């Protein structure tokens, strides 16, 4: 029978659906009667969902287009340079 510590150790793999069938069943059997583990699982799942959908650390359109233009210009200048390097 899985303990709370066992469940915690497998929590990340359980959230990623990377557990074998037998481990998954043991985690679920424990959580079916342990409110604490269920609470930790549920809040961690919500945390990951928020992280994934947060759009965190996004460059503004202005900055991303300025950076892309700068890269574009540098590469073309390099290609047109006296050495005519091909980039490969």
């Amino acid at each position, binding site marked *: 029978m899985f303990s709370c510590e066992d469940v915690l150790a497998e929590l*990340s793999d359980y959230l990623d659906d990377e557990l074998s069938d037998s481990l998954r069943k043991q985690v679920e059997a424990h959580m079916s009667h342990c409110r604490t583990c269920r609470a930790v699982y549920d809040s961690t799942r919500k945390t990951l969902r928020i992280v994934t959908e947060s759009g965190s650390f996004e460059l503004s359109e202005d900055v991303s287009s300025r950076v892309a233009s700068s*890269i574009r210009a540098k*590469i073309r200048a390099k290609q047109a340079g006296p050495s005519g390097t091909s980039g490969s």
Partner: protein
Amino acid sequence: MAYLSGALEDERDFPTLLDIKAAFGFIPNFFRAQTLRPDLIDAEVGLIGTILLKEGALTRRQKEYIFLVCSADNLSTYCVTAHCEIVRMLGIEGPEPEQVALDHTVTNIPTAEKALLDFAVKLNNRPREVSRLDIDALREYGFGDEHILEAVIMVGLAKFANFVSFGLGTVPDFDSSRVARQLGLEPVSDQPEKEMNLPFGNFTLIDEGRVVSPVSVIDDDADLVERTRAGELDAFDELVRRHQQRIYRTLMAITRNPDDAEDGIQNVFLKAFQHIGGFQGASKFVTWLTRIAINEGVERLRTRKDVDSLDEQGSENDAPFRPRDISAWGGNPEEMYSQTELRHKVEQELLKLPAKYRVAVMLRDLEQFTTEETAEVLKIGVPALKSRLLRGRLMLREALAPSLGRRVANV
């Protein structure tokens, strides 16, 4: 069909070939191409029998999968097509063998088998980087010394078969049209002289009606990479457009400094452009690019003598993280906070995590790399990555709980 003329006038002269024919219903080109020296065929069949067919610590399925992932990694069309059919002929249960060959990390095979295949690909592709840590990682998944020995020998057998096949120019003859369809490839020629110049034997990628030579059959960026190599600068502009947000976030994960991250994007793409000729397609382009971003970020940390190192000692052996705030979150945070508020909270708390946990969580959960890709990008084993992920995720949850958990629970 092969480069060398065989000496097969009557197969009844070669008992081993009769056995092979009995097993497959025909004599595969791999053996037909070696009939000048039946004694070599005898020796190889003995080797294959002992290593692959004879029951050992690994199952036949595990051995076939090792053979498949290595053959795909070596771009051996002959061996991939042959063994996809062999896996089917044997009735081995599991995902389509083509999927295992293309990208075993996205199949539903057990995590331990994925770790075994990761190891096989590493040994096949980067043998000098294999160390005792890789062996220990396999042991953590429950593989014993006999399993590991057999896996190593299987990688060797795959290399042997792949290289013999390349050297002799053997043309696929295991119902390759079926395999080709599954891989999204089309047969383009039956002329060996043309076939052998292509990375995937007699197949080439068909992309929107246009024939291109593939970098990697599993990479969405392969076409743009090829076109960039061919001198189409617009194709590289598209790669920049596709990936600059991701590169910015990776640089933020490492440096935590928006100015450094913004400046770093340009260096990352200029380095990628400069070295794209050396990109072999052994990993996805985006994995390779992210690795460049990580190096750029680490270099920037060094320059400003930041002590927040990614390789702090001992963390994988830290005592397990125990959540302190175990109250249930009674609702959905998304209903309680605006998107902007949530983003602000997530950004704030992510940046407070210790570096190794922060980077693992950001690559896996924000960038949505798979577990295996994240481990590859960070050049650590999957078990070490999982350990960092678990701790990082729990720490982040704990940090968010006071605001998200209580407010949600009190609604």
